[in-house]
């Protein structure tokens, strides 16, 4: 695991004051396969936290531990001061929305939503009122009598959200709830879902492998890798100051170059890379291997200057993406050289052209890496 340089002092904020939800040193193994290693995370009431990571990083396991569908090997789960660690799922009052919604096919929409209320023995009148209100919130009024299989994917998802919310859970867990929806609907639903949850001041743990979803929806994002959090921070910090090379690579794109640290003085270092020396505002260890990176939209076409890193690069590909154009440059090995300009491809630029690019030294990221 490459040791990342802390990019910003506040980037690693796993703890909040007076946490409403506290996960403390949760550890879980399946047979000999360790999935979570002493994972800690806390959240305030009403906070929307996303667990982001590749498949197999332990995010779904963590969610199931909180729900009580799995038991942790060690560690503790507390919500609102109550210890949940050893309670079975049905005594936890933690709501969950499943990837495939898990709507009960033998029940109607209203019966699905009423399921939890009935199980808890509420009166008929109260159930009716609360189901009605829940249907209203998810904009499905008048559809209570429908069969769940007659609903569209987006509607099914809203039913599953209503079913989980109507019992008044302390924490809501969402397990990749958009993965079964097509792209357009997904983008619409994530705004809608975020609004509903915010109106209810729900404390949410949301699991996804989609970085865009994570950035759009979250108050804070926990980027996970191999059962450990790589960085827990607000979306802007995650994107602009990734704490580790893993976060840099997993969230967004970046121009990235590896090289050796040539010198370091006054909080600045120079890294020798394939395209020449790159200056960074980090105190790196001279002689060590380092990765330098910058987000592509910070790379501009232009000439050198004392405040900038500058290089003349050969264009390999121009990728027009509608609102922006990506410029990919010739590079060697694992290095990625890219820039982004807004709008159409710059006039007169074709693959093979040589062009000067620059980006601010202050905005250049750097990490110590191992060979």
């Amino acid at each position, binding site marked *: 695991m490459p040791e990342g340089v802390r990019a910003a002092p506040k980037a690693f904020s796993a703890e909040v004051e007076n946490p409403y939800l506290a996960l403390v040193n949760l550890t879980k193994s399946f047979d000999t396969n360790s999935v979570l290693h002493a994972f800690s995370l806390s959240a305030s009431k009403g906070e929307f936290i996303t667990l982001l990571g590749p498949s197999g990083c332990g995010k779904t396991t963590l969610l199931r531990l909180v729900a009580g569908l799995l038991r942790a090997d060690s560690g503790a789960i507390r919500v609102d001061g109550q210890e949940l660690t050893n309670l079975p799922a049905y005594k936890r009052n933690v709501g969950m929305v499943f990837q*495939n919604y898990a709507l009960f*096919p033998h029940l109607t929409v209203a019966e699905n939503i009423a399921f939890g209320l009935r199980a808890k023995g509420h009166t008929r009148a109260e159930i009716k009122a609360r189901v009605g209100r829940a249907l209203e919130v998810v904009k499905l009024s008048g559809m209570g009598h429908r069969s769940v299989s007659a609903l569209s994917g987006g509607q099914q998802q809203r039913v599953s959200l209503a079913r*989980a919310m109507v019992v008044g859970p302390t924490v809501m867990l969402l397990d990749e709830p958009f993965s079964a929806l097509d792209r357009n609907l997904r983008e619409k639903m994530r705004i809608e879902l975020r609004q509903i949850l915010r109106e209810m001041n729900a404390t949410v743990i949301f699991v996804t492998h989609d970085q865009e979803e994570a950035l759009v929806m979250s108050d804070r994002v926990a980027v996970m890798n191999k059962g450990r959090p790589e960085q827990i921070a607000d979306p802007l910090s995650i994107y602009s100051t990734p704490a580790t090379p893993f976060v840099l690579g997993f969230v967004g794109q970046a121009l990235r170059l590896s090289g050796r640290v040539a010198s370091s003085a006054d909080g600045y270092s120079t890294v020798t890379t394939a395209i020449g020396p790159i200056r960074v505002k980090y105190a790196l260890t001279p002689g060590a291997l380092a990765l330098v990176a910058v987000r592509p939209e910070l790379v501009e076409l232009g000439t050198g200057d004392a405040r900038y890193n500058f290089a003349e690069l050969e264009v390999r590909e121009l990728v027009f993406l509608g609102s922006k154009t990506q410029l990919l440059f010739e590079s060697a090995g694992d290095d990625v050289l890219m820039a982004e300009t807004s709008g159409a491809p710059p006039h007169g630029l074709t693959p093979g052209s040589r062009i000067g690019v620059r980006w601010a030294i202050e905005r250049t990221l750097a990490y110590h890496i191992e060979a």
Partner: protein
Amino acid sequence: MQTKGTTEVARPSSGARSGPHSVGDWLVLPTVGYLLLIFVVPLGLLVVGSFLVDGRFSVQNFVDYLGDAHSRSVVGATIRYAATVSFLCLALGYPFARVMAAAPSRAQALLFAIVLIPMSVSIIVRAFGWTVLLRREGLVNDLFLAFGVVDHPVRLLFTEGGLVLGSVGVQLPLMILPIYTVVRSIPSEFGDAGACLGAGPLYRLLRLDLPLALPGMIAGFSIVFCQTAAAYVIPSLLGGSRFKTMSSTIVDSYLVLQAGALGSTVSVMLLAIISMIIAASGALTPGRR
């Protein structure tokens, strides 16, 4: 892999066919012809025979049969026997099917073998096997004694209790398999979702697991009921000559009494009972809403 939150059974799309009257459609003709010849025609003759009295249409055969107290008791005994066996199979089959569906694949294969291997053995052999088990000095009595159910060996063979016990053993696979098929297709998330909504194990069993397994239970029940109601070999070997069922009346009337009218009348009544069970199971099975 589930793609939606509901269990959908894949249906072949009609678009896959090459046309409304493709050559392939005619391939069913030999089968249809064969079935007509060996199934529909004899059945038709049977039905006609039951409604013929002196060459004219009449329901007199049925009136006579049901007017007789002994005959009525035979019909009652047949239904009672089939229903008892079916309910016992249901009570034993559901838990077994559930355990089987939830078991890891290796254990599942073993349980499958336990269910299927007896089915590959001839019904006569299985029935004789039960006669050995049900003897006064047989395994069942040994178990009853060991668990203190009885304090001395009891007569089981040629009693209705022994017959039911043996029939349950023979019919159980036919209950387990349809339930297993349904239970296996229920995604585990349903139970998880129920638990997250605050439903305890008993509530989940009654409101989630059993209703979801209902199609399989109804199918298993109707299969076992029909098999048991129409069974001849097992009642005659385990129940002996004292326990009369409609099947044994049919056999007796054709082979012993040479009374074809009686045989066809009872056959048609048995067919009617079985048809009603099948119709009822079809009506009770929750459809695709």
